[in-house]
C-alpha cells in the first residue's frame, strides 16, 4: 500500500506527462505507480485520463493544435501500455466490445483513432478495422464479435453516405446494436435521420463524448463498488 500523499504525487505526474506530451515521463510515472502499489485503474483514470481531459480543454481553447493533441495521445498510450496488463477487468454489467473504423473511400483516421483510444482506456475490447474499410466489413465484424457498439467515421461528404448503408444493414440484422457516427460532414440531424444512436463532428467533440462516456463508466464502477462494499 501507499500513502495518500505518494498517490497524489504519482497521479499528478501521470496527468502532467499527458498534458506536457512527454512519453518518457509518462512511462516513468506509470512504472512508479506500479512500484508503489497503486491500483492500475486509479492510475489510468485519475492520472492519464484526467490529463487527457485537460488536453481536451486546451484543444478547445485553441491553446493546443492537432500535433499537440496527437502527441498527448501518444504519451497517454505510452503510460497505458505499462498499466494495462495490471488492470482488473471492470465488472460493469455491460459487455464492452466495439467495432470501429473509417468507411470505404476515406483515409482520414485521426478522429477515429482518438475515439478508439478512449475505448481502449475504458477497457473495451476494440476491433479496429482501420481506414478505407469496405462497408460489408463492419457488418461482418459486428456479427463475428457480437459487439454491441459500432463506431463509423467519415471525413468527406462523398464517403459519409456509406455510413447510412452500414447502419441500415446492421440494424436490420440486430436492432439492439448501438451505432455512433462521426466526422466533419456529419450532423445531429443526419445522425437522427439515418438512425444512428450518437454522433460527433470532429476529433475534439469525439474526445469530449468519449470522455463523457468514460466518466459515466467511472460512475457506474464506483456504484458497483459501493454496492459490493455495503
Amino acid at each position, binding site marked *: 500500500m501507499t500513502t495518500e500523499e505518494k498517490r497524489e504525487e504519482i497521479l499528478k505526474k501521470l496527468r502532467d506527462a499527458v498534458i506536457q506530451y512527454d512519453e518518457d515521463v509518462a512511462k516513468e510515472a506509470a512504472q512508479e505507480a506500479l512500484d508503489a502499489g497503486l491500483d492500475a485503474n486509479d492510475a489510468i483514470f485519475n492520472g492519464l485520463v484526467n490529463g487527457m481531459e485537460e488536453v481536451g480543454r486546451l484543444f478547445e481553447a485553441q491553446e493546443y*493544435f*492537432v*500535433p*499537440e493533441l*496527437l*502527441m498527448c*495521445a*501518444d504519451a497517454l*498510450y505510452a503510460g497505458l501500455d505499462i498499466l494495462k496488463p495490471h488492470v482488473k477487468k471492470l465488472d460493469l454489467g455491460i459487455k464492452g466490445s466495439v467495432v470501429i473504423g473509417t468507411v470505404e473511400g476515406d483515409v482520414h*483516421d*485521426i478522429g477515429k*483513432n*482518438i475515439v478508439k*483510444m478512449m475505448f481502449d482506456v475504458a477497457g473495451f475490447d476494440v476491433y479496429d478495422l482501420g481506414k478505407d474499410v469496405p462497408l460489408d466489413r463492419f457488418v461482418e465484424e459486428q456479427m463475428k464479435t457480437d459487439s454491441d457498439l459500432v463506431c463509423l467515421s467519415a471525413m468527406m461528404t462523398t464517403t459519409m453516405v456509406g455510413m447510412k448503408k452500414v447502419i441500415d444493414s446492421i440494424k436490420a440484422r440486430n436492432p439492439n446494436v448501438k451505432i455512433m457516427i462521426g466526422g466533419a460532414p456529419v450532423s445531429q440531424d443526419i445522425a437522427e435521420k439515418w438512425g444512428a444512436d450518437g454522433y460527433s463532428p470532429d476529433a475534439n467533440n469525439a474526445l469530449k463524448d468519449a470522455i463523457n462516456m468514460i466518466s459515466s463508466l467511472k460512475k457506474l464502477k464506483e456504484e458497483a463498488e459501493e454496492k459490493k462494499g455495503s
Partner: protein
Amino acid sequence: MNDFLREALLKAGADVVGFADIEREILDPEISHLNRAISIGVCRKLNEDTLRLHASLRKKASSILKTNGYRYLSIPPVHENGKRKFIASLYPLFTHRIAATSAGLGWIGRNGLLINPEYGPRLSFSTVLTDAPLIPDSPVEQCLCGECLLCVEHCPAGAIIGNEWSRDNPYVELVIQDRCEIYKKNMRPVNGRSNCGLCINICPYGRKWISK
C-alpha cells in the same frame, strides 16, 4: 536561437543542420502554423544506430523548442518505422527533401536523391517543423549536377531519366520508380540484397565519405 540550436545539434552528432522558411510549402491546415523547418542530416548508413542518433537529435531540437515555448512537429527519417503512433498520421504531410532544399543543404539530383555538396547523396534526414522565428538559410534553387550523367548512365534498371530538378519545378519526374522497384525485386533472389544503391555510390559528390 539559430546559433544555439545549430551548435547543439552539431555537437550532438548531426553532420549538417539547416533552417528553412516553409511558409509557402505548408498547405495542410493542421500544421499551417508551423512555418519553419529544421533539417537535420546524418552521414551514415540508415541502420538502427543511425535511427537512434536521429531520434536523439530530434529530441534535442524538440526539447529546446519546447523549453522556449514554441510548437513543433518532429518527423523521423522513415515513416513506417517502429510502433504505430498517433502523431505518425501527420508525418506524410511534409517531406524531408523540401525541408533540406529549402534550408540550403542541397538539391535534388538527377537520381532523385538529395545531394549535399560535401556529403553527396549519403545523408539521411530528420525534420522538425516549428513556429519558432528562426532566421532561414538561403534555399538551393536548382540542380547543381552540371554535366554529370554518371547515375543516368550506370543505373542498371535504366530508371533515371536525366531530368533536372529546380525549386520552381519540384515535381519533375526524375526516376521511373516502377523500373527501379522491379529491378530490385528481380535481383533480390540473385544477389540477396534488397537494395541497389548504385546511384548513391556512383555520385562523385561526397565520394570521400564512402570508406566511413
